[in-house]
């Protein structure tokens, strides 16, 4: 962990800091918060794949064949499966955040229920989409 620079002459340095993550016992909602960030970062990088596909399709048959070959390979399918899961997990996590922003689902039974629904829903939607996709292929 990096030390935070504290310079008491600057007013911003006197702002109180939140307690650090390490002092808490791991909980499902905490893990889901971390997973939301990790899937977000994964989607951030994953957009490069979408850019490759679209630019290849806009460029011509040769470039499209290369992108298409990669996405249909085992590694390509594995990455796409991960991308699909990250997208659905992050999407449902975002819906959860919107529910919280409206002031609902923050208390004990609801927040645990929402965390489980996000986890199960993300997995289920990923499998469903892949079944549809593989049936079409």
């Amino acid at each position, binding site marked *: 962990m990096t030390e935070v620079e504290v310079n008491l002459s600057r*007013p*911003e340095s006197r702002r*109180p800091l939140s307690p650090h993550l390490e002092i808490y016992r791991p909980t499902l909602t905490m893990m889901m918060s971390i997973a939301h960030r990790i899937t977000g970062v994964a*989607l*951030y990088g994953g957009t490069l794949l979408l850019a490759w596909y*679209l630019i290849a*399709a*806009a460029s011509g048959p040769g470039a499209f*064949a290369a992108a298409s070959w990669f996405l249909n390979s085992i590694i390509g399918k594995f990455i796409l499966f991960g991308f699909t899961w990250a997208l659905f997990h992050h999407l449902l996590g975002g819906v959860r955040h*919107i529910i919280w922003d409206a002031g609902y689902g923050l208390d004990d039974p609801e927040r645990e229920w929402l965390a489980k629904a996000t986890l199960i829903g993300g997995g289920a939607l990923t499998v469903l989409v892949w079944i549809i996709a593989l049936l079409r292929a």
Partner: protein
Amino acid sequence: MTHDAAPVRGAARTRSLGSAKSGAADAWRMHVTAVALIPLSLAFVWIAVSLVGKDYAGARAELAQPCQAIVLLLFILAGVFHMRTGMRSIIDDYVHSPHAKEWALVANSLFSATLGVALIFAALKLGLSAGSP
């Protein structure tokens, strides 16, 4: 849940220390793009699934459809702003050295802008073409 303005714990210690910069605007931008991305990502997945197994001509024909092109452009626009703002809050949380933070924020903005322009250009070229050339 109550929404009464109860005195916030520690508020006295933060008063007069200045705002936390652009936090509120970022939170709002995140909220708006997130709401937009709910239907847009579902529509994007639908388009992606319809491209499975398509050859060059088939994919070009699909992406030349006006509805598909419009959905794709909206998805790209909302997505790029969402990812830039999201990465910004991650940088704000984890990069503490002011120098590294500045560079990380610049890199984040340049990456998002470049990706956004590239994706929009490709989607427009595909959308405005008459399918397979």
